[in-house]
C-alpha cells in the first residue's frame, strides 16, 4: 500500500491540501490560523516518529562529537573524556575560521573618520599595569631611541625622545582603554599623533602594516620574552592613535611604558604596546605576540 493512501480524509469543513490555505480571511490580523489536522494510520505515525527520532539522534551525536572536537584538550582531560593529549588534524580550523570572520567584520566596521568617545577629567578611572612580566630596569631610558624602518627613503631613522617632543605637536585626549579580559579604564593621555610621524617619515609605498617592538621584554622571572605587535596602517593613521608620552599630565612612568607607548583606543589594550623601541613598516602582516597565543590578529573594538 502506498504511504499516501494511509492518509485518510481531512476534516470536511476545512481545505484538505497539505498547505493550510484558508479561503475565509481570519477575523483579525492576530487570530491564529487553524492548524492542519489529518488522520493517519497509527503505524504511519510510528514510522514518522522513528524516522525523525533517528535523525534527531544522529544530530545529537554529531553535536556531541563537534563539541568534543572543539573543546580544548585540558578541558576534556578534566572531564575524563580523554586521558592523554590527542592531536586531531585541522582541529582548530573551524575556530580559527570564526576568528578570521570576526576580524573581517571588525575591519569592515572600522572607519578612519569615526572618533571614539572622549571623556571629562572627572570621569578618569584608575589604570592598572596589567603586565605579568617583570618591568624592566629604568636604566634603558637614558639611551632610549626610537628606530624607524621600512621607510620610503630606504633609510633607518633613529630618534630620541627629545627629538620627538621638539618636532611634533602634542595632542591630549581622555579616552577609554578596553582590555580583552573585559575591564576598561578611562585615562588622560598626551602624545604625538602616529599620523604626524607617518607624514614626517613616510613608509614605503607598498606598506600596509606596522610592526612595533618593545623594551618591555622580560618574563615573570626576568627571562627574555620579546613583545611585538602588528598594527594595520589604516588604524595607525586614525586621528586618535597616539604615540603617547604623558599620562595624567605627567611624563609616562616605567609601569606605563616610559618614554613612549602606543595608544590606540580603537584596538584592544594588548595592542597598546609600552616602551616602543622600533617601528617597522611592512607589506605583509607581521608577527603578533598575542595572535601567536590564540588571540585575534586585528583586535578592533
Amino acid at each position, binding site marked *: 500500500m502506498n504511504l499516501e493512501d494511509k492518509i485518510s480524509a481531512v476534516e470536511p469543513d476545512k481545505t484538505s491540501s497539505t498547505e493550510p490555505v484558508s479561503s475565509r480571511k481570519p477575523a483579525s490580523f492576530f487570530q491564529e*490560523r487553524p*492548524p492542519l489536522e489529518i488522520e493517519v494510520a497509527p503505524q504511519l505515525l510510528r514510522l514518522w516518529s522513528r524516522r525523525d527520532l533517528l535523525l534527531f539522534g544522529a544530530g545529537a551525536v554529531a553535536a556531541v562529537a563537534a563539541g568534543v572536537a572543539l573543546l580544548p584538550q585540558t578541558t576534556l582531560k578534566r572531564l575524563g573524556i580523554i586521558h592523554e593529549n590527542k592531536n586531531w588534524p585541522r582541529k582548530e580550523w573551524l575556530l580559527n575560521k570564526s*576568528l578570521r570572520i570576526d576580524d573581517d567584520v571588525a575591519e569592515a566596521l572600522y572607519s578612519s573618520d569615526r572618533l571614539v568617545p572622549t571623556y571629562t577629567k572627572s570621569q578618569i578611572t584608575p589604570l592598572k599595569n596589567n603586565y605579568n612580566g617583570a618591568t624592566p630596569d629604568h636604566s634603558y631610558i637614558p639611551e632610549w631611541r626610537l628606530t624607524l624602518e621600512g621607510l620610503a627613503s630606504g633609510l633607518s631613522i633613529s630618534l630620541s625622545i627629545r627629538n620627538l617632543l621638539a618636532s611634533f605637536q602634542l595632542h591630549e585626549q581622555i579616552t577609554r582603554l*578596553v582590555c580583552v579580559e573585559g575591564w576598561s579604564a578611562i585615562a588622560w593621555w598626551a602624545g604625538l599623533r602616529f599620523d604626524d610621524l607617518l607624514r614626517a617619515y613616510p613608509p614605503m609605498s607598498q606598506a600596509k602594516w606596522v610592526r612595533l617592538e618593545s623594551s618591555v621584554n622580560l618574563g615573570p622571572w626576568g627571562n627574555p620574552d620579546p613583545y611585538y605587535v602588528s598594527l594595520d596602517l589604516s588604524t595607525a593613521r586614525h586621528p586618535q592613535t597616539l604615540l603617547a608620552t604623558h599620562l595624567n599630565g605627567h611624563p609616562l612612568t616605567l609601569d606605563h611604558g616610559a618614554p613612549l607607548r602606543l595608544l590606540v583606543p*580603537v584596538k584592544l589594550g594588548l595592542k597598546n604596546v609600552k616602551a616602543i623601541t622600533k617601528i617597522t613598516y611592512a607589506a605583509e602582516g607581521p608577527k603578533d605576540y598575542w595572535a601567536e597565543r590564540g588571540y585575534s590578529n586585528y583586535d*578592533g573594538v
Partner: protein
Amino acid sequence: MPATQLDNERTATSTPESRAVVRIVRRHHLLVRYSHWLNVPILLGLILSGLSIYWASPVYQHKPDPLTGNSDPIADVGIWICAHVPGLHQYSSPPDWVYNHISLGPGMLAVALRLHWLCAYLFMLNGLVFVIGSAMGGGWRSLLPRRTDLRDASKMFWYYISVPVAKLTHRTWLPPRFNTKYNALQRAAYFSVPGAGLLSVLTGWAIHKPMQLYWLTWIFGGYDKVRIWHFWLMWFFVLFVVPHVILVLADGWDTLRSMIVGWSTRTKRSKDF
C-alpha cells in the same frame, strides 16, 4: 487539487485496515523544530565559553575572603557546593571548583573567545533564519502576547503550582481552557526568549565593539553596565530552561515528540486536550 477530488480518491483506495486511524495535528513547523534544537548546543557553548571569559575579569567582586583569598561571588557558589556535596570536599580550596567544572577551565581566555565567536555567529544565523521564517510563515502570531494574557497567565500559573498537589491527593484538576496554540504563560515565555536572544546579541556587540558601535554601548548604559546586561541575559536563558524542561517532561511524550516529529495527537477533537 480541489478538496472533494482528493477526498474521493482517498476513499476509493482506502482499505479496511486503514480505517484504524489516529487523528494528528501539525504542531510545530520544521523551522521551529530545527532552530529550537540548534539552540541547545549553541547556547551551551556560549554559556561555557562566556563563563570562561567572565572569569578573566569578573563583574561582581567583594572584599577577599580571609580564608580562601577569593573575592568572586560565583566562586563562592563553588565553595558552597564543595562544602555541602559529599565527595567534593577536596575541591573547596582553591576556590575555583565552579569555574573548573562549569566553564572551559582556567587560563582559557583565547580559546573561550574563539569558541564564543563561533557560537555567537551560529546563534545569530539561527536567530535570523527563525525570525525571517516566522515573519514569512506567520508563525510569530501564535507567540504574540494578547491583552487578556495577564489574567490568563496568572490562572495558568496557579494551575501549574497546584497540579502536583492535586495529583498527590488524587483530585481532578482541570487546566484553564484556551483555544490558541500556546497558553498565556507559554506565550509570555516563548515571546521573551527571542527577545532575550536579540538583547543578548545587541549587548554582545556592544561589549565586543564599544568604540565602533559606541552608540549601542551607550544605549545599555556604557561599557561596564553592558557587561552586566549580558551576564544576566545568560541567567535568563538558564532560568528559562529549568521550568521549560520540567514542564515538557511533566506534560508527556506527545509534547516532546511534537518538537521532534512535528505532529501531535492532541487535536481539537481528541479527549485529552
